[in-house]
């Protein structure tokens, strides 16, 4: 029997959901227009008044807001309530530029934690579970979000933060952790460490993992599931909108349900801004309709994905999004071809290599070069140079088939590529240094 955290919302009819969204949207637009000068200017510039927004059908009339706006309005230009009503801030990792700061009222924190509670419940979590939160704590939303959700569900919560992997495993065993929350690359690393310690999945009581905050592939999911003996659930979120739990996966493991009672999704053509119909690939845009302190209308996430209202076997009616196929930030254009690191990762795992790799892109004599360092597979190690070079060529060929462009593959020692405890750095684009 499928368990829901909030059955009424999670299984609501489309008609009721649209009604709820419309009511909230109308109120939110009014709130934002009255209280945020930055937004008022944007809307005035586009000639849109709060009265023009009567239902979700009018959403497209609103201007977009982007990361550049958030940076421009840093630190509190988009704050919609007095600071005295805020109880917390979080911040983006700042890997792609200046940090962005998001504010939360107590209600904002409650609604966010409620979204995370839905995710934990969908992963089978109940008050009988022991939930180990190995996302980073601090400004990063990963730790705080899942921590709060775990409290709501009533799990025994282990606030481990990331790092100190031996201690993670010790606590996991001593306290009988059943649910692990962290980034997928850290989950893979915990799995590797477990095996290096001579342990098997039978030595831990894990049953589920909730992994997000960075792109990962289906192949990586299967490999983590095997190494930890769990079912691995994806979770999606972004600090600008709230944090993890904007969308979460159910037992079907095919796409994530968006908590659309709080966040209305749209898919747009990233070049023209035109709204695309359900089923088409495009950039994901969110409008937060319940947030008080830092409400964003039509925020462009840069994540490319597909939305679907197809009936889900879990009974939830919340709209689903596919795992992002890449971020337009991550997307590299190499010799005119769009390349996502996730595509390369897929090939590596298919070919029996570790998903730890480093991509280096450069421009030499006006031509783009793509070099991929891959950890050699010790089981395939041969004393013959020609065998090893053949492995490099075969892998380059498989990647070429996937991408349409030829990379240079370099085999390096096992475990010589730095493992990450947070977001993995997999791409070095040296072309940017020349510009």
């Amino acid at each position, binding site marked *: 029997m499928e368990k829901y955290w909030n059955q009424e919302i999670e299984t609501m009819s489309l008609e009721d959901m649209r009604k709820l969204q419309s009511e909230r949207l109308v109120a939110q637009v009014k709130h934002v227009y009255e209280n945020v000068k930055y937004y008022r200017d944007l809307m005035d510039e586009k000639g849109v008044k709060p009265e023009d927004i009567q239902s979700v059908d009018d959403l497209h009339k609103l201007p977009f807001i982007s990361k550049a706006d958030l940076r421009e309005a840093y630190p509190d230009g988009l704050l919609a309530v007095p600071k005295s009503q805020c109880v917390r801030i979080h911040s983006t990792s700042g890997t792609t530029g200046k940090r962005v700061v998001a504010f939360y009222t107590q209600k904002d924190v409650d609604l966010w934690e409620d979204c995370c509670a839905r995710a934990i419940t969908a992963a089978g979590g109940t008050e009988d579970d022991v939930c180990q939160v190995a996302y980073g704590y601090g400004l990063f939303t990963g730790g705080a979000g899942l921590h709060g959700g775990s409290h709501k569900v009533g799990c025994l919560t282990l606030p481990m933060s990331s790092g100190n992997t031996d201690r993670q495993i010790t606590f996991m065993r001593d306290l009988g952790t059943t649910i692990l929350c962290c980034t997928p690359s850290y989950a893979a690393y915990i799995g590797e460490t477990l095996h290096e310690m001579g342990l098997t999945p039978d030595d831990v009581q894990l049953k589920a993992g909730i992994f997000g905050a960075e792109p990962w592939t289906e192949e990586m999911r299967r490999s983590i599931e095997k190494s930890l003996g769990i079912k691995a659930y994806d979770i999606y979120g972004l600090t600008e909108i709230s944090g993890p739990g904007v969308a979460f996966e159910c037992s079907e493991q095919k796409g994530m349900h968006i908590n659309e009672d709080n966040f209305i999704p749209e898919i747009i053509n990233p070049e023209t801004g035109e709204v695309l119909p359900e089923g088409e690939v495009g950039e994901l845009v969110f409008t937060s309709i319940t947030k008080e302190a830092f409400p964003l209308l039509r925020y462009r996430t840069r994540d490319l994905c597909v939305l679907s209202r197809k009936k889900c076997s879990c009974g939830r009616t919340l709209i689903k999004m596919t795992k992002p196929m890449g971020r337009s930030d991550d997307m590299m254009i190499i010799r005119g071809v769009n390349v996502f690191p996730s595509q390369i990762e897929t090939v590596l795992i298919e070919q029996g290599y570790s998903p730890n790799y480093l991509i280096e892109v450069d421009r030499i004599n006006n031509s783009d070069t793509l070099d991929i360092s891959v950890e050699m597979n*010790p089981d395939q190690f041969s004393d013959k140079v020609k065998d090893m070079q053949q492995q490099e060529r075969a892998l380059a060929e498989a990647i070429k088939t996937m991408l349409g462009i030829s990379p240079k593959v370099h*085999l390096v020692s*096992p475990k010589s590529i730095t493992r990450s405890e947070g977001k993995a750095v997999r791409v070095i684009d040296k072309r940017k240094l020349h510009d």
Partner: protein
Amino acid sequence: MSNVRQISVFVDNKPNQLTGVMKLIKDSGINIRALSLADTKDFGILRIIVNDTDKTCEILRSAGYAVTVTEVVAITIPDSPGQLSRVLDILGGEGVNLEYLYAFLGKSDRAVSFVIRVDDNTNAAAALNKGGIIQLTENDISEM
């Protein structure tokens, strides 16, 4: 059969990679009898024959190195002109395909020893026997 076990180690093409392997071997008191290093643009393959193959593999593997053990043929021939050419003729005559070979120090200064890596050890050993070439066992080498 008198095949000799050779250990191959994957080493990155970066400074100090070989040093790391050599230090581990030195610290464990293992003696290297024969050594060669094949290198490519990206990586190197260190091939060694030691006086304790199992222990060496264990030490290197637990330090995280990729290691593989292959059986090779080792021979000793007089140190005079034309001897190696004779060996190659013998192998070629039997259709044995040579992958690589390297020389190492024997115990006599009138003889020279070689490690020979072929695809078909059985065929190679039979051909060398027939040609009267002295083959070394792993024991012979560790006692050198």
